[in-house]
């Protein structure tokens, strides 16, 4: 897959001034976090930013078709990024959270990989049934409109593409892209959740609101807060990545895929900002 190593195209170039301002804002945010929360908050914030980057990168793999795909006029899954990413990310988050809770000595890597598997599984099932309905329900073959030959299987595409459409169905490369995107999204969502959960479990019992609760008493609060913040950050990152690809993409072979460096910068800033706000809730009680 050469598309992954490709440089950004001229039409989707970075805005150096805006990106520079954004990176300065990000560094200031990391500094603020270290000042008010110390080392534990800094590590968590970096984990959150990495999680956000995984989500934003993962969205670029997922074949999002939107409304044209629902009419069989464009390849991809017939819904928007927000819905697809939320589905994959939340499935991954549930898997990862379960893997974290069920272990006697919780291991971050195991939980994050389980989250990735959960997200990938969800996308694999979605892609399979999407293709099933396209082929046996709507009676259309899977054909890409962006490439002549499937980069993985070498199957030719133009013969199967109907006139007046941009392709239809999910070609093999789009299917694989969907699963990879689900893995990245699920792992990223789980990482954000676990980073927040660790800080909350550590700091919440020390807050005056919970003076008599103890570590076990605040666990529902810690889990719920981490969960709802992880969902919020997941949706922000997914929608920003969706803005970057203007709503639709075929998968990793699509020329729009090369725009991903922009999304990574945007996602780092957004995740840093939201991470600071989410962690500050336990560090600045008034």
């Amino acid at each position, binding site marked *: 897959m050469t598309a992954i190593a490709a440089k950004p195209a001229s039409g*989707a170039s*970075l*805005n150096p*001034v*805006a*990106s520079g*301002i*954004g990176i300065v*804002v990000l560094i200031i945010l990391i500094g603020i976090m270290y000042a008010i929360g110390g080392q534990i908050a800094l590590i968590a914030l970096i984990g959150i930013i990495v999680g956000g980057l995984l989500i934003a990168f993962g969205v670029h793999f997922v074949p999002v078709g*939107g*409304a044209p795909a629902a009419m069989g006029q464009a390849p991809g899954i017939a819904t*928007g*990024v*927000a*819905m697809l990413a*939320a589905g994959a990310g939340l499935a991954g988050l549930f898997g990862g959270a379960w893997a974290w809770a069920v272990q006697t000595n919780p291991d971050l890597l195991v939980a994050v990989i389980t989250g990735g598997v959960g997200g990938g599984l969800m996308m694999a099932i979605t892609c399979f049934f999407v293709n099933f309905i396209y082929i046996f329900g709507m009676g259309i073959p899977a054909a890409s409109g962006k490439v002549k030959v499937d980069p993985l299987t070498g199957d030719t595409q133009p013969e199967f593409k109907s006139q007046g459409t941009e392709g239809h169905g999910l070609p093999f490369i789009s299917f694989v892209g969907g699963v990879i995107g689900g893995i990245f999204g699920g792992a990223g969502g789980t990482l954000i959740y676990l980073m927040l959960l660790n800080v909350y479990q550590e700091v919440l019992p020390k807050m005056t*609101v*919970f003076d008599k*609760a103890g570590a*076990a*008493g*605040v666990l*529902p*609060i810690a889990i*719920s*807060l981490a*969960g*709802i*913040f992880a*969902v*919020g*950050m*997941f*949706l*922000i990152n*997914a*929608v*920003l990545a*969706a*803005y*970057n690809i*203007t*709503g*639709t993409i075929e998968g990793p072979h699509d020329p729009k895929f090369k725009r991903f460096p*922009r*999304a990574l*910068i*945007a996602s780092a*800033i*957004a995740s840093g*900002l*939201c991470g600071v*706000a*989410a962690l*500050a*809730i336990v560090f*600045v*009680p*008034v």
Partner: protein
Amino acid sequence: MTVKIEVIQGGVPHNTILVKGLVASLVFIYLTYLNTLLPAGSPPYFAFFGGLAAVAALWWGSHTIKHLCSYGIGTGVPSAGMMSFGSGVIAMLLATQFGVGAPIVAVVLAAVIGAILGFVANNVLGMKIPVMIQSIIEMAIIGALVLMGLAALMTGGFTFQSLVTGASLPLAGILNVPNYMGSVIGGCLLAVAFMLGGIAIQHPFNACLGPNWTQDRMLILALECGFLSMLMAAIMSIGLIDTGAALISVIIAFLGWIYTYDLFFKLAKRDAAAWLDSKPIPEVEGH
């Protein structure tokens, strides 16, 4: 006649709706503070104002979404609603730490988060939509206010203390359920409120868009969706606050929903007979 609907023709200007929605929502949220002035131990009878605050914010939000999505952002209308509540929930939860100033702090924090996200979307990602930054600021504020309103509806207060304090259910002592589990945050009722608001904010424009869009019909539909969300939240509040106070919310939400639904039905019938000679959809960049 052109189908480019970027400029709102006729009807109430967006800024009027913005000011009305913001002021009404803040006033209604602060009216729930009357609960603390009631004699000690009495149920939070003023909790229903939280639901009205959410309805007012959603009414404003549907018009903000129309304002932004008229430019063809390409990601679908629901994504705007998800963005709104994703940024709103973060601002709202941090703001609850600031006691009685929480609603004001929520507006300020949401505006800051929205401004940075809008800058990122418009300049770093190169969306270059004129109303992008303003719309994302507004949407983050709306998300925060709707969630704060629904939380106030369910608990009778909007501080972090009241959001994590569990219900005094009669069985809680017998079952040895931790107190914090039966609260808005601990029971994750906030996640339900998130989706109730997230769907209510994007549905009106998503359902009414097109050449036959009329402002009053969309705004009435927004009120109807708002009251429906308020009804669900009011039913959930039965588990958290005194039944009498919760029933007031349920009745107000139900009456509001019936009234706005009837009004929307009339407007839908009024607009159904109209027919507009729409030109083919113009090509949007990026497809």
